[in-house]
């Protein structure tokens, strides 16, 4: 009986999945949308070859116009800066992985509709929380990323990336706030992204 119920539920979920645009619009309507979002993150990477997860934490800043600052504080300090066309890491400038810039912008900026460009989206929208499952459309990206699971309420709270090779990354977002202005330090970091 439980099994049948579960099957029914998942069918329902699939049904909702087809109406992904309505779903996304519903979720997006609940998200707090401001030009600037910042908070803390805790990340766990479960790699197949390692018997314990790689754990890191730090802060993130999203600016609608300028991009994202991803500052890892433990275990080593490093800064990753990204906008739609540029990606800077401790190793210098790198290619922006196709999905990366867009996904960050869509997720942190609440522009969920943009996600349908690169992903097939299914999910559910309940009273207090919502969940989305993204599968890449791009064949090349598919080889790296299997699915991405997003969940949250008025904010994005959790992101899980399941790689095609079996590695899993969990990121939890806490202490999210929406300041009206960037700090000087954040300004200076974004400065490095501008050409």
């Amino acid at each position, binding site marked *: 009986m439980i099994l049948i119920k579960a099957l029914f539920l998942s069918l329902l979920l699939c049904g909702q999945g087809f109406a992904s645009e309505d779903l996304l619009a519903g979720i997006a309507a609940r998200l707090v949308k401001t030009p600037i979002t910042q908070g803390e993150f805790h*990340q766990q*990477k479960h*790699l*197949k*070859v*390692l*018997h*314990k*997860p*790689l754990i*890191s934490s730090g802060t993130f800043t999203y600016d609608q116009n300028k991009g994202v600052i*991803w500052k*890892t504080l433990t*275990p*080593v300090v*490093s800064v*990753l800066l990204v906008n*739609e*066309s*540029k*990606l800077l*890491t*401790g*190793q210098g*400038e*790198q*290619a*922006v*992985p*196709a999905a*990366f810039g867009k996904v960050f912008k869509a997720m942190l900026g609440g522009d969920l509709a943009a996600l349908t*460009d690169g992903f097939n989206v299914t999910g559910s929208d309940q009273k207090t929380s919502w969940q989305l499952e993204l599968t890449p459309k*791009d*064949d*090349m990206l598919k080889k*790296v*990323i299997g699915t991405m699971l997003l969940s949250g309420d008025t904010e994005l709270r959790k992101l899980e*990336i399941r*790689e095609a*090779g079996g*590695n899993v*990354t969990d*990121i939890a977002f806490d202490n999210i706030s929406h300041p009206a202005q960037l700090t000087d330090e954040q300004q200076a970091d974004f400065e490095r992204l501008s050409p």
Partner: protein
Amino acid sequence: MLVICILGAQALTKDWLETGFLALLPANEQQPEIAKATRQHNELSNRKVIWLAGATTSEEAIGHAQKLKRQLEQSRLFSKVVLEFSPQQYIRQYQRLFSYRYQLLDTQTQAMLANNPDRLIKQNLEILNSPIGQMQAADLERDSALLFSRYFNSQNPVKLNLEQGIVVLPDKNKFWALVLTDLQDERLQLDKLETLSALVDSATEQVKAAGGELLVSGMALFTAHGAESAKQEISTVGIGSSLGIIVLLWATFRSVRPLLLSSLAIGSGLLAALVVCVLFFGKIHILTLVFGASLIGVADDYAQHFLCDSFGETDWSPRKGLRFILPGLSLGLISNLLSYAGLGFSPFPGLQEVALFSAAGLLFAWLTVVLLFPLLLSGFTFNHRPGILKLTTYWEQHWPLWVSKNRRCLGLLLIVFTSGGLWLLTPQDDVRLLQSPPAGLLRTADKIRQLFPMSPDSQFFLVSGKDQADWHRNEQRLLERLDALKSQKALAAYEGLSRYWPDANQQQQNYQLLKHSWYDSGLLERYMTDLGFDRAAVQSELKQFAAAEGNTLALPEWLAAADQNKQQLWLGCDAGRCQSTVTLTGINDINALAAVHDLPGVAWVDQVESVSSLFARYRIRASGLLAIAFCLASLGLAYKFGWRNGATIMSVPVLALAVSLAMLGWFNQLFSLFNLFALLLVLGIGVDYGLFFFMAGDRRASTSLGVTLSALTTLLAFGLLAVSSTEIVHAFGFTVTCGIVTALLSAPLIGLKGQKL
């Protein structure tokens, strides 16, 4: 004539036209290895055409590019059309090189291991914890310290964003999808170039209609534009001048015969010149054809002079006329042949070709006039006095008088004018000044270079060594210098093989460095254990490292795994010499780069500079030869008429040359090798005019008509070229115009009884 035609039919069936600039160089001018490297470098870059389809979103841009790709493939112009960059090549390369991972280290990792191996651990943690470290994390199983991942990534220093395997270049509010094509043939036929231009136009229209934008660039487009505009100009100028000449000759002679005859004289001269040249040299350069053909324009003088002589006497017959003008014609021919002979003695094949071409052409035109005209003109008389004859007669009588009345004032003016102009005259030999690509094409090319800074500049280094080790050492030294220059922003990037392929010696050093700093020191074990690898993984890693000690990756094996651009850097080893090229991108400070050639085994190759300096040398040589030609003609005339008279005749071309040069100076016109060909033409024509008037005697009226007609036809034929937007052609036309007008004005001043200029 028959013989020429038969020989011509045989000679011209072969491949007889040469278009490469380098073919003009004397054989010893170019070192063969530099020539070979240049050829290879050009072959690669001349074939490339880069297409960027732009739109506001990357999906749209990709959509445009996909449609574009299909269109390009259908055109059959390209041997390669690349839109999707398949990961297969990278995977294959990864697999082929992976077993040599302990021998291959990129420079940064090398430095890190040597100075501060702890840093490697920190950097790895950074990479692995990064939200974008998925790829590296996935490699961790094979490549525990990410050493090979580092080496592999350093092979592609410019990081490009791929979407669906397609390179997408971000721009302000725009995305560009990249399509790379290689033309089938490096030296495109004219009709293929036209197809290419048409293809570019229609593709641009289609992308635009779909709401996007298309940028296209490539060497072939510049060539296509040059060929197109030259063709257009030559046809407009050609039609204009032909019409002008027809009207002029018709108005004078009221008969088509003179027109046909002068065409015959020039035509037979051209054909004969072409045939003789091809028989003698095997091939003829397109520039020879252009300038040689211009110089044969002198032949027009002979025809006009003969024809106009018919107005000189009432009972004129071709034979009588010929008897009268033959000395003048023959002397004109000899003085011209003498002046071209000077060119023939230069060591430059280009000038030799021009000399032989013009001499042969002129000789045959002269033969046509002297041998065929009397036959073809039999029964040819005029019973009208053309209006232009009245005009030239009046002109011939009154102009010299006016000049001699004002000679003090005019003389002073002339001296000030010419000396001022000559003072201002500055030679310009930069080959880039000679090309005049439209601003639009240049802008697009710049924009593409800024978005996709991957196509190497035309300058490069040629590195050689007596064996592979020697070559490797030399190139490494060069790359070190280039690194320093790169940090000073003298260039954006470079590509050199030894950056990626360490030689056997260095491979051993790499291995030893790793062994001592990373494996034997216990760092690897600590790193792997801390990260969470299990014991077995650590043991296996140590075992693999130990087993790889004797490995050496040979260059051919490395090349086999590399992409085409890198493969082409290697020129191979032969007869005790190994060579490679180092290509450069985004050059800012060319002098700083050119100064690097002091390193052993390193040669700086700058084709633009070498062609420019070639032009400069040609210009200086040709100036000398012009002076020699002038002396030879003067000597000839002095021998025949005495010094005083010789000088009188030569005063016409001298004045014409001086005024031409002064005009170039005053109007700040391009003064290069090409003007000198125009000056040679002016010299030849000036001598003719002077001679004709000097020997006119009592036939000054008909001589004046002949010279005027000849000058007007020359102006129509060559002077009109001054309106061209192609710099060389314009410079040629401008010089000829100034010289001919001056010769026309000064010639009637001589030969007057009791009066000398």
